[in-house]
């Protein structure tokens, strides 16, 4: 019987898994800079521009080895980034239109080249269009080595130029004033997105690669304010989605690995957006509820104290109808909550109907403090 271990040590599976881990880690690290520099969609343009790069690489090298294809993708990706920059700087097009123009025309050129290669019946071209969506199962050990080398270059660059990249990302103006070659550094950072794209060609394909650049970084951004932590988290999230996507694709034959990796990454991003402390939507909602409850409690306490003082007795029990009238809304829920906290106590009415409430000593103390705080605040 086939055990989990057998599956994991299977040749194809192990290759795919290692590839996915490499890819996730690198795209997480490089995506961090892309997302922070608001170049997320440039990643989309670069990944689409990889298609003509792959075709040119194939035409030049005449074989379907990963090396020439990756080199072609890298060069054409850099050219595409340069075109986007040229259009943004020297034409009246906005940056989104520049990205859109480059993305779509480069991809169009890619389809032309792809059909050209297919119709020329060149040998060894079968499966070139698998780069559209990636084909993890076709991963060879030699591909892995290539991917590993690219990843090492990318991560090595980040480590070596850490300080420079950090400053250029957050305050390019200051970096320029220090006399740093900001244009060059920005160019390197942008080309590194192309690097991440290249490494994802085999696994995820050119169409969905953008998700792997954005999603892990966007997820990591929710958990931290520090670049160091963000890069590490993004790498972790990327690697986790790569591994998870590859493993899920084993469940049933025919499940494409690329889309699964993308969905895992997006899932992590969605969870982070919802749950992350401080920034998460759920966290914020809880926080807001807590603050609102605090404000409501405070107002009811102060109202009670003022009502009691108006009657010349801080232990005076006010009718709930009266409290509602002064509070301006139904205070029932807040009163019950305050009772649980031991700040107010209900009493049977001496006269009239309905419930009456009076402050406990602790409640009087709390209300007095609030009232004084309020007065101090007004004097400032």
């Amino acid at each position, binding site marked *: 019987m086939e055990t989990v271990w057998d599956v994991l040590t299977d040749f194809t599976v192990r290759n795919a898994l290692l590839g996915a881990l490499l890819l996730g880690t690198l795209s997480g690290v490089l995506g961090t800079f892309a997302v922070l520099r608001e170049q997320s969609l440039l990643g989309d343009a670069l990944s689409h521009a990889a298609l003509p790069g792959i075709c040119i690489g194939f035409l030049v090298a005449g074989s379907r080895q990963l090396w020439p294809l990756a080199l072609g993708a890298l060069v054409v990706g850099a050219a595409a980034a340069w075109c986007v920059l040229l259009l943004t700087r020297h034409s009246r097009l906005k940056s989104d*239109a520049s990205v859109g123009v480059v993305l779509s*025309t480069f991809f169009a050129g890619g389809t032309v080249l792809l*059909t050209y290669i297919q119709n020329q019946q060149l040998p060894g071209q079968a499966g070139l269009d698998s780069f559209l969506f990636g084909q993890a199962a076709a991963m060879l050990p030699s591909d892995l080595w290539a991917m590993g080398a690219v990843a090492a270059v990318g991560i090595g660059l980040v480590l070596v130029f850490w300080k420079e990249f950090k400053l250029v990302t957050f305050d390019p103006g200051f970096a320029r004033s220090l006399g740093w070659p900001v244009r060059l550094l920005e160019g390197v950072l942008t080309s590194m997105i192309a690097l991440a794209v290249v490494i994802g060609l085999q696994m995820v394909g050119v*169409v*969905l690669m953008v998700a792997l650049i954005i999603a892990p970084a966007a997820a990591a*951004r929710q958990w931290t304010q520090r670049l160091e932590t963000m890069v590490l988290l993004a790498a972790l999230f990327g690697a986790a989605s790569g591994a998870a996507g590859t493993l899920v694709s084993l469940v049933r034959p025919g499940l494409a690995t690329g889309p*699964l990796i993308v969905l895992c990454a*997006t899932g992590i991003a969605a969870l982070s957006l919802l749950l992350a402390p401080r920034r998460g939507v759920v966290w914020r909602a809880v926080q807001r509820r807590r603050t609102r409850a605090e404000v409501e409690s405070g107002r009811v306490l102060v109202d009670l104290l003022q009502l009691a003082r108006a009657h010349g007795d801080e232990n005076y029990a006010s009718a709930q109808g009266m409290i509602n009238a002064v509070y301006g809304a139904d205070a029932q829920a807040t009163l019950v909550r305050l009772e649980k906290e031991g700040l107010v106590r209900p009493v049977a009415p001496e006269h009239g109907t309905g419930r009456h409430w009076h402050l406990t000593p602790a409640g009087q103390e709390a209300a007095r403090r609030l009232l004084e705080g309020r007065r101090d605040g007004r004097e400032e």
Partner: protein
Amino acid sequence: MGAFLDNVDLVIIAIGALVGISASLLGTFLVLRGASLYSDAISHSILLGIVLVYLISGDVHSPYQVVGAALAGLATVYLSELLGASKRVKQDAAIGLVFPALFALAVLLINLYARDVHLDEHAVLLGELAFAWLDVVPVGSLEVPRSLLTMGIITVVNALFVTLFYKELKLAVFDAGLAHALGLKPRLLFYALLLLTSVTAVGAFDAVGAILFVTFVIVPPAAAYLLTDRLWLVLLGGCLIAVMSSVLGFHAAMYLDVSIGGMMATITGLLLALAFLAGPRYGLIARFLRLRQQRVQAHVRMLLVHLYTHEHEAEAEMENVPRALEHHLRWSPRLSRAVTAIAQQQGLITVEPAGQRLHLTEQGRRMAQEVLEPWRRI
């Protein structure tokens, strides 16, 4: 009509042109509003709508496709805007988070449930214009290719939308605040625009595929925008560029034996590059020439002012000679010679005796005065 429909080449070109016209009519406003990448997002995520409708109805060509795709498109935009508005991620990252996820889901659903139908993701991405004429539907006594019919209807609808809401769209694009203040509901209009974009994308995806559709949305209007400042000219120019791309692209594709849709889209890109380089006012070459012209004129003015200041001084013998320009203005000999020649040509200075003394003409003096004391303009 029948003769036209029998001419396969013409039908293919017509379909391409209709896709281009309908897409660039809408694209104009997306490009101008800075929202052009929504077309990219939409064209990917409509696949999810198409797959879901297929899974429910079991029919790839059901009319509900339009509904499903339109909903998927709007959902993409709505989700992206929601995510962007939450400030948790930047707007561009929000777009990049939403549409790949929906697209990946669609690909996965195809993988799982729709393996053997004509709905593979490659066709969706690339389309195949060459076979578009094979799929015909009867209209009266004629057999009309389905793509031609749908794209024709969509083009008419889009043209009507743009014509009817021209004023509103224009205001919404250029001054959303004012449009809102006047009660024109620019947001609603924007969503209507994106709804039509989704519908057009569904119509186009059979013919040219999702990503080439993006080309037709963004590139023709962008190219036209590089050529003119008038909105209606951008609209018209976009359509013209789309038609040109369709015609040129078809013939180029036939000649090279490559994907027709891909070639048409590539041609739009080339036309944009041409507009970028050679556009009359905003083109790179025109701007370069204008800059050079201005630089020369600035030098000429500098020469005039120099001559004017020293004209009646004792040092005029020393200052107003060609050699002084090299020393005092720090011009290279070549530049000095060139500027002197140009100024002479324009009748602003005379050189007497030849090659020695520079004199201002009356016109040159007036110009120097104007530079130095512009408030005394005569």
